[in-house]
């Protein structure tokens, strides 16, 4: 029997506010344990939450980017459960009146467009962190009350790969908006997956299983693949899928049962009486809308049509806003968008990867790259020389220097003077009578040898087209 996979993702994105969602404590990562705390986020008796307006604004912005409806009436609710990292014994979240509903996200999967519905996105506070030390357990509340936006997708995802691409596209949007740093390893973006399978053609959904603790892009796909296999195996053996929550164990690459339906919490949601409903009126939404940047997919399509670069290149170049801006500037400065794309996609990304740097920390500036391309296009330097200069820049040489200065200082200008090139060719021909003989008797392949010898003699500065023309004549 053939099976279809059905996946819905719940993503928790930590919003990049300076202070927490309900108090003035800093959200900074890595502070000494329990120092970013106050009576509010440690759940002291009598302490009360006050909503951080920035959280609402970032949520509106994200909702708009995901084409959501922004709801006017926003109610916070208490989600009640006991856990040591939850100081109040409840989490303040949104339940039946979330800020964003009915959105969608379109992205590419193997060069084909895919659209996944966004059910809702709601604001909530994070919990603290339990740390286990032998027989002791300690609690760090620095993260308690850090703002999160939980983004819930429709069960529209059909494969582990699509799930990965959805996550990458969502992350890319969050980064574009500057509302989340998208760092899954540090936990500022976390993902739970609801996974089920059904026979192809079946309309009804299969029993879904919730997967937790999948905290990297790689693990999301692997965890889902494992879980889909597990479910199909069970069904084929005639067994039922249990409604449960499972944890992904990345070391063993498998999922293990965490709690069954019977053990599921009854969260006893009710409206948070310490916070008044938040009214998000049209004027507020429209004001936030003016801050909406061009989004990755729109940029991708524009790059393809405006700069005539392949869709694949555009996908990579638009992954982050900084990368797209870098590319676009180089493309504009050079009027050679294809060359700009080639250099960035090839050499620059390789260098950044090797040096573990972001595009914003690139050792080669936009202006330097643009000047390199312009000097090649203008015939002033050869591509080969350009590569040498590029590698030097990458190694930290000529930081902040103008490319023109580098070229003239090192005397790297391409030689196009036919007299000078002819003299070198004559010298090479004279020095290699055997090869000349072989070439003339039909061994065409040796032409490359002569070009190489001439180039070597000229330290790479000879204009290749001139060398080719003259060599053909002379030989």
């Amino acid at each position: 029997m053939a099976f279809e996979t059905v996946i819905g993702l719940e993503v928790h994105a930590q919003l990049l506010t300076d202070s927490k969602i309900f108090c003035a404590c800093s959200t900074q990562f890595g502070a000494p344990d329990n120092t970013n705390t106050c009576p509010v986020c440690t759940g002291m008796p009598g302490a009360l939450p006050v909503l951080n307006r920035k959280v609402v604004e970032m949520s509106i912005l994200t909702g708009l980017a995901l084409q959501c409806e922004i709801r006017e009436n926003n109610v916070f609710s208490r989600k009640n459960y006991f856990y040591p990292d939850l100081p109040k014994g409840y989490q303040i979240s949104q339940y039946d009146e979330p800020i964003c509903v009915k959105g969608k996200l379109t992205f590419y999967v193997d060069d084909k467009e895919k659209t996944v519905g966004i059910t809702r996105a709601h604001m909530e506070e994070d919990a603290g962190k339990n740390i286990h030390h032998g027989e002791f357990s300690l609690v760090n509340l620095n993260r308690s009350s850090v703002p999160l936006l939980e983004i819930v997708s429709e069960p529209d995802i059909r494969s582990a790969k699509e799930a990965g691409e959805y996550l990458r596209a969502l992350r890319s949007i969050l980064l574009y908006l500057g509302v989340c740093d998208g760092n899954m390893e540090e936990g500022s973006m976390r993902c739970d997956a609801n996974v089920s399978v059904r026979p192809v053609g079946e309309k009804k959904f299969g029993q879904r299983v919730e997967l937790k603790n999948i905290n990297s892009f790689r693990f999301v796909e692997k965890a889902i693949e494992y879980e889909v296999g597990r479910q199909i195996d069970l069904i084929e053996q005639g067994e039922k899928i249990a409604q449960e929550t499972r944890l992904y164990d990345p070391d063993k690459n498998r999922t293990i049962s965490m709690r069954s339906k019977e053990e599921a919490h009854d969260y006893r949601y009710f409206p948070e009486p310490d916070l008044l409903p938040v009214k998000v009126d049209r004027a507020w939404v429209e004001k936030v809308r003016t801050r909406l940047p061009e989004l990755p997919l729109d940029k991708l399509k524009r790059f393809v049509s405006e700069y005539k670069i392949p869709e694949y290149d555009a996908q990579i170049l638009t992954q982050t806003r900084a990368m797209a801006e870098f590319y676009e500037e180089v493309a504009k400065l050079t009027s050679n968008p294809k060359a700009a794309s080639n250099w960035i996609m090839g050499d620059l990304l390789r260098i950044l990867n090797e040096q573990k740097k972001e595009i914003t920390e690139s050792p080669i500036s936009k202006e330097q790259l643009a000047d390199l391309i312009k000097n090649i296009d203008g015939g002033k330097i050869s591509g080969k020389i350009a590569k040498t200069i590029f590698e030097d820049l990458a190694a930290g040489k000529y930081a902040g220097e103008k490319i023109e200065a580098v070229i003239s200082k090192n005397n790297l200008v391409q030689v196009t003077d036919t007299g000078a090139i002819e003299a070198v060719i004559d010298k090479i021909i004279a020095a290699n009578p055997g090869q000349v003989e072989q070439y003339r008797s039909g061994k065409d392949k040796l032409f490359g040898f002569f070009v190489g010898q001439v180039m070597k003699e000229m330290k790479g500065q000879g204009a290749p087209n001139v060398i080719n023309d003259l060599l053909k004549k002379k030989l």
Partner: protein
Amino acid sequence: MTSIREMRDGVRNKKLKAKDLVSEALKKAHDAQPKYNSFISICDESAMKAAEHVDKLVASGKDPGPLAGVPIAVKDLLCTRGHRTTAASKILDQYIPPYSATVVEKLEEAGAIVIGKANLDEFAMGASNENSAYGAVKNPVDPTRVPGGSSGGSAAAVAAGIVRAAIGTDTGGSIREPASFCGITGIKPTYGRVSRYGIIAFASSLDQAGPMTRSVDDSAIVLETISGKDPRDATTADIAVPKWSENLKDNVKGLRVGLPKEYFADGIDPEVRKVIDNAVQLLKAQGATLVDVDLPLTPHGIAVYYIVACCEASSNLARYDGVRYGLRTKDAANLLELYEKSRGEGFGAEPKRRIMLGTYALSSGYYDAFYKKACQVRRLVREDFLKAFAKCDLIVGPVTPGPAFKLGEKFSDPLKMYLNDVFTLGAPLAGLPGLSVNAGFTKEKLPVGLQIIGPHFEEQRILDAAHTVETHL
């Protein structure tokens, strides 16, 4: 005994010393403690230090504020930085808050001096002050009787003459009922008038702090000091705080006084009825017009209140889990046991009862029938009041069906105890301001309070009417 106005003027004019006022109050507090048990802690050291500070300010020509040198008792539900704050619960027995409630800060900024933390029903749950882990409070009028609750310690401290003013909190009547039982004045302001920040939450949508004092003028002065928008409490109203004490007048001429027939129905103690009728006639004699109004949902208020309050309480009390502060059991084998035993050992019977009621009413499958329904009826209760206020300017009636009852009389019957709240629940459910002012005594010399309820943010009208009653009684 000197009024708050006289005390602060005396201190400001250097005729009185804060140090003397405070040491006298502290002495009385210690002397009265074995009789009435009105305090959980008495703050000798910090109070004397604060008094010296006030005197120093005066000596250096500075004004310590409108409550300069006034000794005050604060219900032990309000956090006081560096001072044990227990909520009358064993679970917070050794809890020392790192911060003070906004109300406490405002009092201290105004020059008032907190001399002690008043006893109460555990987590403000009760109407007799018998539900305290630190023992019952006795009514100074008749020590065989309860002072009312939950702000029983605050009421007793004022009635016993230890302080002129105490801070209480009212969720379903916890200021007005003890004020009535002890023969003093107590006002529960409009919801949102006074910050709840730092006041240990019982039922967040109902809790309000307010003054309990000897006179209406005293209440007005204290209330205007503690009121106002607080950036730390999102539910406080951004509305100007009038100078109630300066505007206070003995004048009810032309005022339409509403008499809800549900507040004058059968089941009210005839002695109470007599005192209330007399007070109503007094208002009429002073120029008020009497109007009949209906509050038909009054009997349902009890069910609505006990569902809403217990639901909120079940969640508000979840933080007392033995993990970060408060009582932690000595012998827990695992996390679940840590929770169960810490909470089992720490909470008294009444909080346990209400946590269970609230947890049940919020549970999946019961939420719609209980919590949601209660919230709907609560809105109707509010509408009832708003309709009544279209016909009248104030609503008056008894605070409770009977006067202060005997210690132990209702203790073993929680339902009977809950029924005692029937007239005081309306104001908090509707968010309205309500006050109790002494209107006379029963044959047994037990005080009876007249309850005056006003429209939202009309505290002045209530205070004026109470002042009229107090003046002409």
